């Protein structure tokens, strides 16, 4: 977050988010591994009294007192009964039975969402600058639900229960649990109740990309956030004795490698065990790696763990090579020894050189922090992808936000790599994941809530989605690092978040609790299942359609087989799908005209009416989109975009077409 505010345009347009007290009334609740309250990101200097709406507490526990909270960190609680029931007694020498964060993840996400500005922040000199949360004046309430053994649903549900009672405005959950129906998913159930109380729930999409159908947190009342890169990098170049140089990344800081070229060995040739190429603990033969740079393949164990394994075996450096699973995605780490991470192509070339050459040797040059890297953002390979595995008619993820190499606050109880042998302690750390992109959106949602306290969670989400961008300033489309090609709405949803535009979206697609209940009816949920999700009896007493659910994006499903006509015979006519949406005016009066951009020549798209005129605030106008297409092979995906504009505002919606 020494870079994301400027990357998101927050610093270039200070007038966009006026200095108002309303932002300081916003409370962002973070369900995670707790908090390191001494982090400067939770300094409350200059903050006014705690909002009168706050009902929460600062729970005491081991190494955590009531004075650990202040006017920034207004609440901190822990939920461990579910965890304790599984693991038995607490090992308090290992983790604190208190809101204190012994992991770092929770401090990182909380400070990303709403941390106070901290000048002179960096990780070992990397990414220097002023670190600040996306909503720097908002208050933070921490709910510790994740422990060394995981995050358990009974604890998570209780934390959401408490956060609702405490009156938070935004909930940030950088966690997930695979894909299960909404009525079986405690996060979805809790998020529904939060939504009803006007709380926006932002969740990470998951790190199971680039595989399709890999997302979690898919409920439409959740804002699901994928990850993109920043325009910042940390180059570390591997130079080989054959004169070739390969670009990699690293956050290593420490004693340099000896001068000149150093012998290099492939881990797969320095081991007696299967999968020794992965540099698993105890797998390297010290005689073969001593005083050498070791080439390790990425995968299975943690990247930083591989460096620790090389170091323990006597190696002096490491080149970490991506395999097909990660492609060209480069994630920087604060390794314990001089190391660089290279992409698959470079890794393959270096491996060929090392295993086939005689006396292979290399060096690693660390170039520090580089800015203005282009293109950026690109969709991170690890970011989970659609289609939506539960409700294909809802396009997910909703958007992407910065989630690669993010600097934010860290726990004083653990080193930056998280490995036990790392005795370094840092105030800030640089890590990657949709865990990092989620709190960016949580904080931005807090900013919008402060600016527009009357907006519903759906309106805030709509504003963030319809103003997200899908192309670079040069007009080229956002790229996907997993393919090197343009990304699609199944990768980036509505696009990359643009908070300055989201502040003034012109129009929003709003949704009420009734609309979500209608959504459950459209899914043909039983009364019991609806009652589970919504805690009420609700009669589905009319015809409900997923295609009329007022979501800010479109996911259109066509069947591959021939559809039948009215007589029950196979039809050769195009299949027609009609989707209706309602826009609410949240800007000045204006006339909006629709434009359609399509990569799907197989699909005919028309919108009726083509112009919507709004004469007063909160006026609602509906439109219908007709999609017609013939049959296509199963698993075919195509994409389009529908935009409404009055010349000043652009209200964009992605469209995905899937044949199944």
């Amino acid at each position: 977050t020494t870079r994301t505010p400027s990357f998101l345009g927050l610093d270039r347009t200070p007038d966009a988010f006026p200095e108002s007290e309303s932002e300081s009334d916003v409370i962002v609740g973070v369900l995670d591994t707790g908090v390191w309250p001494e982090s400067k990101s939770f300094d409350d200097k200059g903050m006014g009294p705690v909002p009168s709406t706050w009902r929460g507490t600062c729970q005491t526990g081991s190494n955590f007192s009531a004075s650990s909270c202040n006017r920034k960190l207004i609440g901190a609680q822990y939920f461990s009964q579910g965890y304790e029931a599984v693991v038995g007694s607490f090992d308090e020498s290992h983790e604190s039975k208190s809101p204190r964060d012994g992991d770092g993840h929770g401090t990182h996400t909380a400070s990303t969402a709403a941390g106070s500005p901290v000048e002179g922040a960096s990780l070992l000199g990397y990414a220097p600058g002023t670190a600040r949360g996306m909503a720097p004046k908002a208050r933070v309430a921490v709910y510790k639900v994740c422990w060394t053994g995981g995050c358990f649903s009974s604890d998570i549900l209780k934390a959401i229960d408490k956060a609702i009672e405490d009156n938070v405005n935004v909930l940030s959950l950088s966690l997930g649990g695979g894909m299960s129906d909404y009525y079986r998913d405690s996060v979805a159930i809790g998020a529904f109740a939060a939504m009803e109380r006007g709380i926006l729930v932002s969740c990470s999409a998951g790190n199971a990309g680039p595989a399709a159908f890999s997302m979690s947190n898919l409920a439409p009342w959740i804002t699901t956030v994928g990850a993109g890169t920043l325009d910042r990098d940390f180059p570390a170049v591997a130079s080989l004795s054959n004169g070739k140089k390969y670009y990699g990344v690293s956050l290593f800081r420490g004693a340099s490698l000896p001068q000149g070229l150093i012998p290099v060995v492939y881990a797969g040739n320095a081991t007696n065990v299967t999968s020794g190429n992965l540099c698993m603990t105890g797998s390297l033969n010290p005689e073969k790696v001593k005083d050498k740079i070791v080439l390790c393949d990425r995968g299975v164990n943690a990247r930083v763990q591989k460096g620790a394994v090389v170091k323990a075996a006597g190696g002096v450096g490491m080149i970490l090579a991506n395999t097909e699973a990660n492609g060209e995605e480069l994630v920087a780490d604060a390794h314990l020894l001089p190391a660089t991470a290279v992409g698959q192509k470079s890794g393959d070339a270096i491996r060929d050189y090392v295993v086939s050459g005689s006396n292979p040797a290399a060096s690693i040059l660390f170039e520090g922090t580089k800015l203005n890297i282009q293109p950026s953002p690109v969709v991170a390979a690890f970011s989970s992808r659609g289609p939506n595995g539960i409700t294909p008619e809802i396009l997910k993820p909703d958007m992407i936000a910065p989630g690669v190499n993010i600097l934010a606050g860290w726990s004083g109880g653990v080193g930056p790599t998280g490995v036990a042998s790392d005795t370094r302690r840092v105030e800030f750390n640089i890590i990657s994941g949709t865990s990092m992109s989620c709190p960016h959106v949580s904080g931005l949602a807090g900013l919008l809530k402060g600016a527009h306290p009357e907006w519903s969670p759906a309106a805030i989400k709509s504003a963030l989605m319809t103003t997200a961008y899908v192309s670079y300033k040069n007009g080229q489309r956002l790229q996907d690092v997993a393919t090197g090609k343009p990304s699609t709405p199944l990768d980036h949803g509505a696009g990359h978040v643009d908070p300055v535009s989201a502040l003034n979206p012109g129009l929003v697609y709003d949704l009420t609790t009734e609309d979500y209940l209608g959504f459950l009816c459209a899914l043909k949920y039983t009364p019991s299942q609806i009652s589970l999700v919504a805690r009420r009896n609700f009669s589905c007493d009319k015809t409900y359609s997923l295609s009329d659910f007022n979501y800010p994006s479109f996911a259109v499903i066509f069947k591959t087989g021939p559809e039948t006509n009215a007589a029950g015979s196979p039809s050769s006519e195009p299949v027609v799908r009609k989707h209706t949406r309602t826009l609410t005016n949240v800007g000045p009066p204006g006339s909006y005209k629709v434009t359609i951009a399509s990569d799907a020549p197989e699909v005919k798209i028309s919108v009726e009416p083509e112009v919507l005129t709004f004469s007063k605030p909160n006026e609602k106008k509906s439109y219908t989109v007709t999609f017609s297409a013939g049959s296509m092979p199963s698993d075919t995906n195509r994409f389009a975009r529908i935009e409404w504009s009055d010349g000043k505002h652009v209200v964009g919606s992605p469209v995905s077409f899937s044949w199944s």
Partner: protein
Amino acid sequence: SASEKKTYIVHVEKSRMPATTDYHLQRFESSLRQVSDTAEMMYTYTNAAHGYSTRLTEAEAVALSSQAGILSVLPETRYELH
């Protein structure tokens, strides 16, 4: 084993009776006692859900789920950080 207890989240149908905390607790306690003399409520949920979590054997969970007013007895799920 059959006697091994696991954590379950019990979702209870919301009654039309007044929503007092005591009433909820009595109702939850009463449903739980019908399947287990020893099981204790770990958490009660009133805002995010309507119900409670408890430790049950699989047989007790099955018995509880068949009771009137019980919407679901969901086994604990482990989530992970992203």
